[in-house]
Structure formats: C-alpha cells, structure tokens
C-alpha cells in the first residue's frame, strides 16, 4: 500500500465532509444516500458475474434526530479516519467503537459496535474506498493458508518471502488483514480447497492432503473474513486456480459458500473485488448425506427457516441449489464435515474428496 493510495483515500473522505459543508451553505438539509443493504436490494450483475446492490437507496438525512446523530457521527469518523491515514496508523473496528468514547461530543459516540461497523460500511460505499484503504481492520482474522505457494508480503517490518508449506508450521501461513500487500511469486498448486472448520483443516493437513494433491488449503474459519475472500479471489484470478469450498451440510454453511462465490449482502458493493463466482461447492451436499449414509442431526426450526429463506435468496436461485435445498427439507437432516469420520479417519482424504473432486473435474 502506497502513501499515494492513502492520500487518495483521505481526499475521498474529505470530499464527503465538504459535501456536507456545501449542503449547509446552500440551505439544504445535509444528507447522504447509500444503497439499501438488504436481501431484496441485491441483483445479479451479468457482466461481472457477481451480486451487487440494486437501485434502492436509503438516505441518511439530518431531517430527523436519528439521522442528524448519524451524520454527526459520520463527520467525527471521517475526521478520525483522515487523521489515521495522515499518520499512517491503523485500527480495528472494535477500536473505533471504543475510541468514540474519547470524543468530546457525547452525541457523536457510538451506542454499539454494529453502529460503528455500519457507518464504516456506509463510508466505504459513499466514498468508494475500501475499509482496508481506510486502515480499518477486523478484530481477528486468523484465517490461514497451507499449500505449495511462494509469496512475498509487505509488512511494517519490511518485505518477507514465505513459502506456505516450507516456511510455516502446522498452523500454516496467516492471511494478513490487507491481502493486497502480498505478491504471489510461484506455486505448484492445482486447486484451492477452502475448508469451513478448523478440525477438518487439521485433518487434511495431518493426512498430507495438500502435498498429495497439490492443494492450497484455505481455512475459512466459519463465515470468511474479507481478507480470506480477497486472497481466494486473487489466487483464482492471478494464478488461475480453481476454487472449491468444503463445508458442513447445513444452511449456514451454504451461506459461507455463497459469500465466497457470490459475495455477501453487507459487502455487495465490494463483490467485484471479493467474490469468486467460479467457486464450486464440494459438500457436504444433502445428496451426500443420503449417498454415504452419514450420521445426522435433525433440522431445527431455525435451520428450516434458513433453508426456506435461501430458496428466496437470489444468490441461490440455481437448479443445483434448489434441488439440494429441497432434498434437505425433505429428509429433514443435516451433517457436519467431521461426520465423515464415521467411516474412518482417512475416509475423507482417501475416498470422499477424491471422488467429489474428480466428479467436479478438478482433479
């Protein structure tokens, strides 16, 4: 990340403040418009092959007490971010929330972290600068990569060249908050295997799956952080590696796949930058539950609601997903990745994954 980039981000933010200034001067009610961030306002961008926000906008206007407070907070946050960029510092979203406590104006302080997170998203959208370029990072990322990949990372303490198999321990290479500071040098990998749970990732590493199949094992750690999605996207785009997602067989895991492949609703403005539409879903598929006779849990009410809402989610409206979701609703069961252990610890690496991957023409 260059200082030039920082300067640009800073100017974008100050432009926003200037916009409020001009609105005041013109006797207008200060306001800013952002796309409505709900499921009903995302649409498929055929050109870019990702889901982006539709035309509906919400206006944050000083017309109401609530709106005025929001804008006041926005101005304070803009000031904070501008200063941060100027001083080349960074902070976490949570730090921003606590930091607001130190502001002289109590009206400008955040009530909870959702509010500050939401405001940062607003500012990203309105200014067209990503959070990372504001030097804002999530509290924890901790997602890792293990596999035959050689890269160079720009750190605060200088450049580091790292091989993600040879230079790292069992834990793998930790993805930095801003993966755009990484340069890929070389890779022997054939494909990317994004894994939802830590237990399964460890199983694959222990069984040497990455070495055997030349796989880059990316640990998603549940719903993947932006950095994880961004690096996956870059690996796919720059190294031309196919992306596969291996998750639990339940509605929440389908959403994890969804955010890798299509982008999330909250960050649909960044879909182009984060989503990998070519990503494929390995499993656990509802069909696998039947085929491999896996140990199961019954679907809870919230599972059923989630599945039904996925049926309405524009991102899941494909023949494949409709078939799988309806099958799952029919059998009323779900299985975890690790339920494959019921067939032996090596079943997943020796049978399940090779079978599924060859079915999907990845190997």
């Amino acid at each position: 990340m260059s200082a030039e980039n920082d300067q640009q981000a800073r100017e974008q933010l100050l432009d926003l403040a200037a916009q409020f200034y001009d609105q005041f001067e013109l006797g207008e009610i200060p306001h800013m418009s952002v796309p409505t961030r709900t499921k009903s306002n995302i649409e498929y961008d055929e050109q870019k092959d990702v889901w982006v926000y539709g035309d509906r906008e919400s206006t944050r206007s000083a017309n109401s007490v609530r709106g005025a407070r929001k804008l006041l907070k926005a101005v304070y946050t803009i000031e904070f971010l501008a200063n941060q960029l100027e001083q080349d510092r960074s902070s976490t979203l949570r730090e921003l929330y606590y930091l607001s406590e130190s502001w002289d104006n109590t009206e400008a302080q955040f009530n909870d972290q959702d509010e500050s997170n939401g405001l940062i998203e607003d500012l990203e959208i309105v200014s067209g600068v990503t959070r990372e370029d504001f030097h804002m990072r999530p509290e924890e990322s901790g997602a890792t990569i293990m596999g035959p990949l050689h890269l160079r990372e720009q750190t605060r303490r200088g450049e580091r060249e790292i091989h993600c198999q040879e230079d790292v321990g069992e834990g793998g290479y930790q993805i930095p908050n801003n993966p755009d500071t990484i340069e890929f040098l070389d890779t022997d990998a054939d494909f990317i295997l994004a894994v939802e749970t830590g237990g399964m990732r460890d199983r694959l590493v222990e069984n040497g799956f990455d070495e055997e199949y030349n796989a880059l094992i990316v640990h998603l750690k549940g719903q993947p952080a932006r950095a994880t999605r961004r690096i996956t996207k870059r690996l796919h785009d720059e190294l031309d590696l196919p992306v596969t997602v291996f998750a639990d067989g339940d509605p929440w895991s389908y959403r994890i796949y969804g955010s890798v492949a299509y982008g999330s609703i909250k960050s649909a403005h960044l879909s182009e930058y984060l989503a990998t539409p070519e990503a494929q879903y390995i499993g656990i598929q509802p069909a696998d539950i039947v085929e491999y006779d896996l140990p199961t849990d019954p679907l809870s009410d919230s599972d059923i609601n989630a599945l039904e809402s996925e049926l309405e989610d524009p991102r899941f409206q494909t023949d494949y997903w409709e078939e799988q979701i309806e099958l799952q609703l029919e059998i009323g069961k779900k299985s975890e990745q690790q339920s494959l252990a019921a067939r032996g610890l090596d079943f997943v690496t020796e049978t399940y994954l090779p079978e599924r991957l060859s079915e999907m023409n990845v190997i």
Partner: protein
Amino acid sequence: MTSFQSTLGEESGIAEELAESQQAISIAEFFEKNKHMLGFDSGARGLVTAVKEAVDNALDAAEEAGILPDIYVEIQESGDYYKLIVEDNGPGLTKESLPKVFGKLLYGSRFHAREQSRGQQGIGISAAVLYSQLTSGKPAKITSRTQGSSEAEYFELIVDTDENEPEISVEETTSWDRPHGTRIELEMEGNMRARQQLHDYIKHTAVVNPHARLELKEPNAHFKFERGTDQLPEETEEIRPHPHGVELGTVIKMLSATDSQTISGFLQEEFTRVGKKTADSVIDAFRDRHYGREMRWSSPDDTEDVDVGAAVSEATANKGADATAAFADAIADAVADRERIAHHELIDLVAEAADAVEDEHGTAFGETVQENAGGAVWSALIDAPEETADPDESAVEESRLVTDCYELADAATSTRKDDAVIHGFASRLAAKFEDEDDERHRLTRSQLREHVDRAADLTEEYDEVSFGDTARENVTEAVWDVMVTVPDDPPLVRELSGDRDATSDLVDAMRATDIMAPPTRCLSPITDDLIEAGLEKEFDADFYAAATRDAEVHSGDPFVVEAGIAYGGEIPAEGSADVLRFANRVPLVYQRGACATTDVVKSIGWRNYGLDQPGGSGLPNGPAVIMVHVASTNVPFTSESKDAVANVPAIEDEIELAIREAARELKSFLNKRRSMEKRRKKQNVLGKILPEMAEKVAEVTDREEPEIDDAIARIMNNVLVERHCEANGDGQAVSVVVENHSSTNESLEVTDIVSAEPRNLSDGATAVEMDGEWFVKWEPEVSSEDEAVLEYEVDNDAAFDLDVKGVESAKLTVTDQ
C-alpha cells in the same frame, strides 16, 4: 302496634275519636320537622345552605332590577352560634313585601312563572330564617333600602310556624351606607366543617356569574371575586306552557279558566308555539282519538260485480229517468275516480253529484234521496248481506272486504307467512268490520287493534300458526294508514271542560303532534364566551373551551346545557379532574354522586380527548376542570334541597353533547401541544447537533463555519425570517426575507422597528413614526415552500428590532443581524 280492629264491635265512635286527633299542619310546621328536605340536615350543611339561599336570592334580586350584583357574605363566630350576614345591592324590598319574603314559606313570584330563575318555590330564604330561629331562638334581622328612599327599613322577625306568617318584633327606620339593597343577618347553630364546600360554592358562583362581584369573609379567610364582565345576563321572559309538557289536571284547570270558545282558540291562546296550523294538527289528532277514523275501502274495479250506478238508480225513485241516470252516472264516475273511499267521503260525493245534476236537469235531489242513494252505494261497497239473501250463498261468495284486508295484511306481514293463513286472517278481520254496528266503519286506533288482535287470535287458534305482536302491529299500522280522519267538528271548550275522557284525548293529541320546541327567551344561558371568561377568572389554566347547546325540551320545559373545560396551568395535576355542576347559575355542592352531570362525565371515554382515564371509564385524571350548566324553566332535581340534577335522558344527552363539544377543542389543543412539544424537543436536539456537525465539518475541511439557519428552518418545517443589509450609496438596502418551509400557508405580522426613517418601502408595507422610531408593518401571506421579501432603504447607522407574530414561536426562526 295497637289493633283497633279487635275493639271495633265493643266501642262505637272510634272513628270520631281518631278524627279528633287529626288536624291540618302548616307548611312551616312541616318543614320544621323535615329540615333535611331543604338541605338543613346538619349544622355544617345548614350554614352552607343558608349562604346559598341568601346569595341566590340576592343575585336574582339584583339581576331582575338590571343591577350588576355586588354581594357581601360574612360569617362571624358569635358565642356558641354563627352569625351569617349577607348584603346585596339589589333594588331593596318595600315595607309591605319584606316581611313576607323572609317570614312566609312558599311566598314568591317565581313558582307560577315559566322562566329561568335561581329560586323557584319561594322556600329558600324563609327556610333559612326558620332554621335560624329554630336553632338559636333569635329573630332574623333585616335591613332594606329601596332606591331613592332616604332611610332604610329595619325589621326583626320570625316565622310563626302555626300560621306560616311573619311575626314582626321590631320595625323601625334606620340609616345604611348602601344606596339600595338588602341585608340579612341570621344567627344559627352550625359549624365550619363544610368550609371547603362553602368556599367552592362562592368560587363556583363567581365562575358562572362573571358579571357579579362577590366577597366572602369568614373567621379563617377572606376572598374577593371581582367581575369578569359588565354584561348582565340577558333578561328572561315568561312563556306560556308548551303542549308537550302539560298534564291532564293542568289542562282541565286551564279549560275552565280560558276565555276561548273553540279548542283551536284555546290551544292558540294558552300555549306557546301553537298557531292555526299546529292547532289544526292537534285537532286532527284529537279527532282520531275521540271519534276514530273511517275505513276507506277500495273502489270497485271493472272486474268486480259491483254496479254503483245500478244501486243508485234502484234507490232513487220519482226523479225522472234522465235525471236519475245522470245522478247515478255522476256518483258512479266519482266513486270510480277514487282509489279508496270512506263513508263520509261518499256522502260528500253524493251531495256534490246531487248539486251538479240539479244544476243541469233542474231536478232537486233532496236529503232523503241523497241518503238513500249514499246508503245503497255504501252497502254495495261493503257488500252488506241483503236481508233476503240465502245464507248459504253469501258463505260461498267472498266479501270484497276480504280482498282489501288481504292486500293490506299481505303487504304488512312477512313473506314467510303462508298465503292461506293471511287469507284466513283477512276474512276474519273483514268479518269484524262487517259485524261492526256502525256501518260507517269508524274505529279508533285501539278499537282497530282489538279487531286485529281478535282476528289474529282466531287465526292462531284455527290455523295453528303464530301471529306475533310485530305482525299485529304492522297490520294495524297499515290499516290505520289507509283509514281517514273524520270531518266531525270538535267539541267546544265548554263541552270539553266537563268531559274528562275527551280532555284526556286532547292531551294525548297534543303530545302526539309535532310541535316546535318552546322559545328560549325564557332561558338565560351564560353563553360560551362568558363561561370561558368565568373559568379564566377563577382558574389559572393553559386552555379554556366552552360550548352552549341549542335549547331542547324535557316534559314541556325548555332547557339549555352548557359545558366548559379548563386545562393545565395551575390546576392541580394530581387526582381526578374537578367537576363543577350548575343549575340555573347555582352551583351544586352536595350529592355529587347522585347527579346526572357526574354520571355523564364518568360515561365519556376521556382517553379519546387526550385525558388520562384509569380503566377507560370514570372521572378523568389530570389538571382539568369540567363544568356543566343546566338552565331550564324547571330543572328536574332529585330532591327539594336541589343538590343533584335528576337522570332525565333528554338532559343527559344534551350534557354529553355539550361536554363532547368542548372536549373536542381540548383534544385539538392537547394534540397541538404534544406535537409542538415533540417539535421543541427535536429542535432542541437538532439545535445542538447541527451546529456541532457544522463546526466539525468546517474543522475537517479547514473552512469557515457554514451558515446553517436555512438548513435548520427547512428541517424543522419552520418559518424563517431573516434580515440582510447591503451598503447602497449613502445608506443601506435592507431586505427582510420570509421563507416558509412549513407544510401550510402562513400569515405573518412582521414589525420592524427602525431608528431612522425608511425609504422606498416595498409594496404592502407601511411605516408609522412614533417617538423617533419608525414601525414598519408588513403582513405577508406566504404559501408553503415559498418566500416573500420586504425591502426598504435606510441610513447606515440605523438600528433595527424585528418582531414577528402570527406564527407559533416553536415554528419560527428569526435571524436579526
């Protein structure tokens, strides 16, 4: 109890013995024993009642004389007793009438008058005198001075309870500082436990009598209630009774006293709201009740085997063929022209035909001929069985009356009834008509109903179906509608006066006739303006509303209901709202729970009007005073002590409507106040946030602080008034801009006070000089999202002061540089 029955046989003359102990009791004696009936049941209450009676009297006296009342009430402790002094500035009383007014019960000018006044029976003040002499044994001391007399009369008197006459012990002339008026001094047993009621009474009297000045001095307190207006209540006029409100006994008495000969004259002379037309309606109603109506049977149509002409020809003899034929044709045509015909209508019609034929043919058809012809036609119409007819035959052929009855009954009853049942009923009803002795088929409504009932009973019995009350009533109504009022002359007044039943019919007829409500000049409502003035005078509130309803009638007495509401301000917010009750301008202090007014207030859903009402019924809570005034020539009270208005539905309805009318105003006031409060709150918060935001934006962008008044005005939907000054040659050009960001049109009143003479004023503005300052007045009307500009020029060193009216302050932003 001793039984006299057992001794009846043994001793004679017991009745005489008993009779010896029976004697007349004077009215004064009666009340001596029944003090509670007049509100003197306890020492505490007695004192309040005495004040009340004396003050009511004083107010009435002054108002009648057209004097603005000025009343002084004093209560002194006097040993074991209390001394009550009430002074007024009324016209004073003459030497002759004074003792009677104070010393004789049931003496007064009010009892017989249909006119609104405070006192009615002439009991009040003399009862207070009676109460004082009973408890303290001291006479009442009365001073009175009539206008223009040099000296005042002074009396000491008591009521002689045996005779109900005043007994004067001292009578002398004295000097008095008031030019005219009356002063009464009573000493009585009592206590001040009812102090609160006493204060309430005086205060409430002040509320409903804003034209009166009242002063109360008692051992612990001294209040003065000054006038709120110099306008005396409108003088009332006595009215004659209204036909809807008189009883049989009264009418009998009036009949014997009247000078009128005819009923019509009697009605028009003795009653209010009765003219020729109304009298005629009453008389028609009387005829229906007294004589009954005649049934109109349908005229025969072509299909029927009824030959009117033939019947006439047959009944007419020796009149020549041509004339007879013409007579017969004329009658037949006239009958055929009508849809239905009654007996008297037929007789009239025969007479007309006779006249017409006589004109044409020169043959006279005398009364006998007419009678014969009419009789014959009527018989044909009602199908009277001929003497000679074979009974079997008439049984086979159905009377044409049945068809008529069937049509009426069928239309009047529900379609679910079997056709055969209706037919059976119709023939039975027709038979009742045929059996009628009076061939004219004349029936009163109740006789008709009897016939219908009988026919229905028989139908129920034989056809085994039910013929319910509603069906019977409907049939009766249908037949009654077809029947026609008879033209008989009503009896003369002298004939009527001896006839109780006929008089009763007349009273019924009067009640049944629609008659305009009685005139209201006999009433003197306070009027909504003065109610508000009265409330404003005595309650320091934020809001006042009042409503005066139009006059209505209950049992012949007109009445007007008025309501007023005061809200907020200094009225205590805790507990339930105060209900002030008034009847004929007199506050009602006792028996709140028994009063129709309280019942109505409790029954209203006050939450609808923005007041708190626990449980959604009962008295509302909050800083409110609700007052209700019932004015009538005869306010129905629950008892003689006149503490509570009786639950008369007509009055309750009006009370409710009056309160709701005032409450609607309260509601819009409260709504407005709430929305203004919300707006103020919003303005307060935004007024803090936006300048902070502007400051921060300026800091971040490194610029001067932006101008934010316009934005705030727009956000608050406010009206913004701004002054801009610009150097212009020697002086400066001033423009005052009004921007209306509200959603409604706004009319403003802008006054700019300038210390130098303004020049070149823009259109519509005027400048007036006053003590070296120029008042620039401008009254623009600015529609929503529009602006208006006032422009003028003035010297450079001029100072300004901008004042804006016409817009609520919460909505107004004035920027005066």
